[in-house]
């Protein structure tokens, strides 16, 4: 309709509205890309944690953050035996493999962990593996050996014997320049030689040496090695969907109910009003908390409760106040006089009249619900399976992220929340000035 297009066209005079729209469009675009790039089930599955993330460092900060500060913290290095020049010596009933795993290390700090993942196949007897560490200054450090199961790992950084031997944490001691007081990285080419004896001619063994870094990707990782980028990305569509659905659910139902009450008046209206008053003393968040602890923390249940409690919220009183004079306005009486039915009057005559005033409220409500979802998650009542911003914040808080200086862990989801809030609020405020006739007059 022309009225709408004219009003919306006026928005261009408000730079804040344009900024808000750009932010919202970016968020929506991000959501679409995320949903297409990583399907819902896959995202949920990965976020559950576990083996998928074993090659990621714990609590690594975003790489760009460190580089921006001029740091040179280590990235994670993964050296696969498939790329190595394997020496194979066959003997009867088996073979002996010598796999050198080389890597160049010239970062300023030590890695956070070192693990070797082994995978042995097609054997009848478990193979035997022995490890030797070669440093750039040609020292050789034997790391012991043992039988290897089909899927096995050498957790070098948790090798207490090695730690005692080196007098330092293994991941430090193995890469440190010898003879200095405070450990210092010795740059150069390191080699881990895997000496494996296989007791079967067909048997195979592959190895992955993981030298865990201290920085990771765009968003860093959490205490469960999960890439935060996953939660940050998937948090966007979830937050938008929750905010939008809750806002639509509450405003539309409230509006229609308020309009129905106003139109029919009498006992129905009185009942609706009393219900809003009762609802006013039912505290939303504590009730959500109660539902969350007693039943389930599923986001859909929460959404349902939010909408249910929102129906008779204080805004019903506001809409009622706006609708009451409209109910008495001549055009409604005229409509009644030419035979419009009750439902037609409510939906075609009453509701459209205050829709313009409602749009800004609606837009500003979205971030309120986004933050509500985050609040619940921060309280530990977030949906148990969904990756959301609030859950990231909750994890961060549980792990005392601020105390441990993992600021990125808190800041990234917080900034995204803020961005969402600001985007919608900026647009909402501008819409208010455009659509609210009382504001237009000043």
């Amino acid at each position: 309709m022309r009225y709408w297009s004219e009003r919306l066209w006026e928005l261009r005079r408000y730079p804040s509205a344009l900024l808000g729209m750009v932010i919202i469009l970016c968020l929506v675009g991000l959501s679409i890309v995320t949903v297409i790039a990583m399907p819902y089930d896959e995202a949920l599955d990965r976020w559950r944690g576990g083996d998928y993330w074993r090659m990621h460092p714990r609590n690594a900060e975003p790489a760009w953050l460190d580089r921006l500060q001029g740091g040179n913290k280590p990235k994670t290095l993964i050296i696969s035996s498939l790329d190595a020049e394997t020496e194979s010596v066959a003997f009867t009933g088996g073979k002996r493999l010598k796999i050198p795993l080389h890597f160049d290390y010239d970062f300023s700090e030590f890695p956070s962990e070192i693990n070797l993942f082994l995978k042995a196949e097609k054997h009848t007897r478990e193979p035997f593996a022995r490890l030797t560490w070669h440093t750039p200054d040609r020292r050789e450090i034997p790391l012991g050996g043992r039988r290897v199961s089909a899927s096995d790992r050498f957790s070098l950084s948790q090798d207490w014997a090695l730690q005692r031997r080196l007098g330092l944490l293994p991941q430090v001691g193995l890469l440190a320049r010898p003879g200095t007081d405070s450990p210092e990285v010795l740059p150069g080419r390191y080699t881990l030689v895997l000496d494996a004896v296989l007791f079967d001619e067909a048997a195979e063994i592959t190895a992955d040496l993981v030298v865990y870094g201290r920085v990771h990707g765009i968003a860093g990782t959490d205490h469960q090695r999960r890439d935060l980028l996953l939660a940050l990305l998937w948090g966007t569509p979830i937050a938008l969907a929750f905010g939008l659905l809750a806002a639509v659910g509450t405003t539309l139902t409230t509006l229609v109910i308020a309009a129905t009450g106003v139109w029919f008046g009498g006992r129905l209206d009185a009942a609706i009003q009393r219900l809003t008053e009762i609802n006013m003393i039912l505290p939303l968040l504590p009730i959500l908390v109660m539902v969350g602890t007693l039943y389930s923390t599923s986001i859909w249940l929460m959404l349902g409760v939010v909408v249910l409690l929102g129906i008779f919220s204080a805004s019903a009183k506001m809409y009622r106040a706006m609708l009451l004079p409209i109910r008495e306005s001549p055009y409604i009486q005229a409509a009644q006089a030419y035979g419009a039915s009750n439902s037609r009057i409510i939906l075609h005559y009453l509701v459209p009249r205050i829709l313009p005033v409602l749009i800004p409220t609606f837009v500003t409500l979205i971030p309120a619900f986004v933050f509500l979802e985050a609040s619940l998650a921060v309280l530990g009542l977030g949906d148990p399976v969904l990756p959301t911003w609030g859950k990231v914040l909750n994890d961060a808080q549980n792990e005392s992220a601020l105390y441990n200086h993992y600021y990125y862990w808190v800041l990234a989801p917080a900034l995204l929340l803020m961005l969402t809030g600001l985007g919608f609020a900026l647009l909402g405020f501008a819409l208010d000035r455009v659509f609210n006739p009382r504001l237009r007059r000043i």
Partner: protein
Amino acid sequence: MNPSKNPSIPKKAEGLLRDLKLMLLLTGKRIIALVLMVLIGVYLTILIANMGGRVDELRLVQIRSEISEAVRGDLSFRELDSEERNQLIQRRVDLEVRRLNLDRPFLLRSFNYLYRAMRLDLGRAEQMHSDMGSREVHAIILERLPATLLLFGTANLLIFFLSVYIALWLSRHYGSLLDRIVIVLAPTSAAPAWFYGIFLILFFAFLVPILPSGGMVRAPPPEDNWNYTLSVLKHMALPVLAMLLSQIFISIYSWRTFFLIHSSEDYVELARAKGLPSRMIERRYILRPTLAPVITSFMLMLISMWSGAIILERTFSWPGLGTLIFQAIGHHDTPVIIGSVVIFAYLLAFSILVLDIIYGIVDPRVRIGAAQ
């Protein structure tokens, strides 16, 4: 049209007496209405908490585990074989169930719950206890209440008076720099207080450590009152600041807009034509007629803040009701959670009552309308 022969000016006292009577009437009516509201609200809470018999299930499990533990731990039952022991447990459970009326229909029991909840007899906590060692839910809650009231009372009053005065000033200085700054900053109120809390803690407690990051008072608490107060104030600074940041701009903005709209009312124009000084116009002709809606919006803000209290307190480890609820979630201590909801309902109802009375004082239309 016939003027009275002797124009009599009614005495001021008569008007006051009438107002006093009307106010009493209004207060009485509102108290009755609010008691009814609380009654229904608490009953709804009980219904929600009992939907699907979840609470009963929890209680049953609890009773059973308590009894079986007691039976197993009791030396005098050592001799019994498992069959007999189970029967004994079952008998005791049945006895307990009957004693607690758990076998009666829910409808009957719900009224029993309601009666107890209204009397603040909120039952015994499952896991938690108050600092004094009591397991009574109401004792646990009442112990935490003052901390919450202190923090939120201070913050809300501060926000209210600051924003009304700044808004009045801005409505006079429409379009000034400060006015434009407020307009620009208003959308930042989309974020709740706890959110700003995180940033404030990050900044003032970790990056520039000048203020404590949480708690209500230094540990161990200072001995003398003066230092104690000082310490509490220091701990309050950040949470109050967080609430201020999240609410002040939107409050100023909306009230300034409101005052601007109302300063074009006919009676304001007439007051200007009368040549009244602008301060008088502001106080008497803009602020006073709009106080009622201003108070309403303050009330709505208060209600949302009460709800937000839980999470803000958790962020700042403020030992109030919110933290209590959070701990209760952690312990799955249902009686405490339900009790807190009831207490919140009481708090909200009380806030509404106070504001209703203020409403009646500032607006004669409410006062006189209530009496008709």
